[in-house]
């Protein structure tokens, strides 16, 4: 498994999950988990994805998602999951 984590931060709006998941589906990326919360009036969404079946390069996926986010006025980041696992799990 080649796990990565997508985070979306910004003002809540219609179609955030739809647009993101449409892109992922088109590129053969599986969504393992989705959760969301509101922190200080900001919408925070996290998706755990599996990139092992996609042929698209990881850097391009991150850049595409950032661009999709920008169009909706949101900050979208896609990072390999190890940074979170290493930091928060002994």
């Amino acid at each position: 498994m080649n796990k990565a984590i997508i985070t979306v931060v910004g003002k809540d709006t219609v179609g955030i999950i739809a647009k993101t998941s449409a892109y992922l589906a088109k590129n053969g990326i599986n969504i393992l988990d989705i959760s969301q919360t509101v922190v200080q009036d900001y919408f925070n969404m996290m998706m755990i994805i599996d990139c092992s079946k996609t042929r698209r390069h990881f850097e391009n996926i991150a850049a595409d998602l950032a661009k999709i986010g920008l169009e909706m006025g949101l900050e979208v980041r896609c990072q390999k999951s190890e940074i979170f696992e290493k930091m928060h799990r002994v």
Partner: protein
Amino acid sequence: MINISEVIETNRMILEENLDVRTITMGVSLLDCADASVKKTCDNIYGKLTRLAKDLVKTGNDIGREFGVPVVNKRVSITPAAIVGSACCKKPADFVKIAKTLDRAAKTLGINFIGGYSAIVSKGMTPADELLIRSIPEAMAATERVCSSVNVGSTKTGIDMDAVRLMGEIVKETAKKTKNSIGCAKLVVLCNAPDDNPFMAGAFHGVSESDAVVNVGVSGPGVVNHVLKNTCRGESFETLCETIKRTAFKITRVGQLVAQEASRRLGVPFGIIDLSLAPTPAVGDSVADILKEIGLEQPGAPGTTAALALLNDQVKKGGVMASSYVGGLSGAFIPVSEDQGMIDAVNAGALTIEKLEAMTCVCSVGLDMIAVPGATSAATISGIIADEAAIGMVNQKTTAVRIIPVAGKKVGDTIEFGGLLGHAPVMPVSNFSCDRLIARKGRIPAPIHSFKN
């Protein structure tokens, strides 16, 4: 599985609190580059560096993008140049040729600094060591990215006072020869210098190291400060210390991940993680701010040494468990010009060189990035170097002096270095003379290691 609050916490550290990996430094042995001809030695050096480190910058940037954490600097450290050039360099100008070669290699590789234009003279200088030291002012003037260091003492050998005397003159000359005296910002005099330090200007690849190695320096004063501000106001020392440890652990884990990833991709063994809290001139990335958050009005106030000792120790305790190998300098850095909080403390009259010297007894490194009047004598600079080296020698720790006697400036002026090097107020130095001490020849013997008092 990772939960959303953990993800938000990590990204807040990166985006708002300046968490970054400060440097991936590749140590490269140049022992096999030595030749009887200066030209051949230089060619060998250039060839080996541009071969081994050719993917360093790209790898650092790739890792930064994939994990979403900035890898700020990509650098190289080399075997002390005095050793590499000892067979071929017959005059200081020969060593300058090596410095220029290193600068050229650094530019080809796209790295911002290369460290190891160094001599290790803790007990005495070989003719090559002395030639290299005498070449430093010219080398600093003729290059842009080369960092130089001289180790003048150690706990096992004592202090080579002949080298200390010489370094006072060399620091002065370097200040005069380089624009804005910036050469002195790339020149550090050490005691007990570690072989695996990834941080400039004191980085070199010691002879105890293997052919090539990847060392990583993490950072995150902003993260520690933020956590203390939000959770530790008015809390006990137990809570304070636990919080610093926990935070240092998290910061260091990022460094460990990046180091292992860099090592794998470059095909070069992982050396060590340096646990130092390294500030930058950016607002919110300051060790001074942490000291204030612990409870001081300004760094330099009574209690500063205690607060710094606490901070330094907890950072190590938290970081050690987060990494498989820890080394380098590993502690809190307290440079003046590179930390806005320190600059403010100097300008407020709270922080003096004497207090900084006391602080260096309990923290990583020493008198770092301190600007003093251009008229400060070479003997006084040697005296300051000797004091720091003595602290390191007796306390079995690394100490260093990176002092800038800014040509033409006096107390109250400010000097601008730019970038990570920041800007510094020119600080007053004691006017009382140490000329007769510095004029003595020979060395200070190694200290006794019993009867600790």
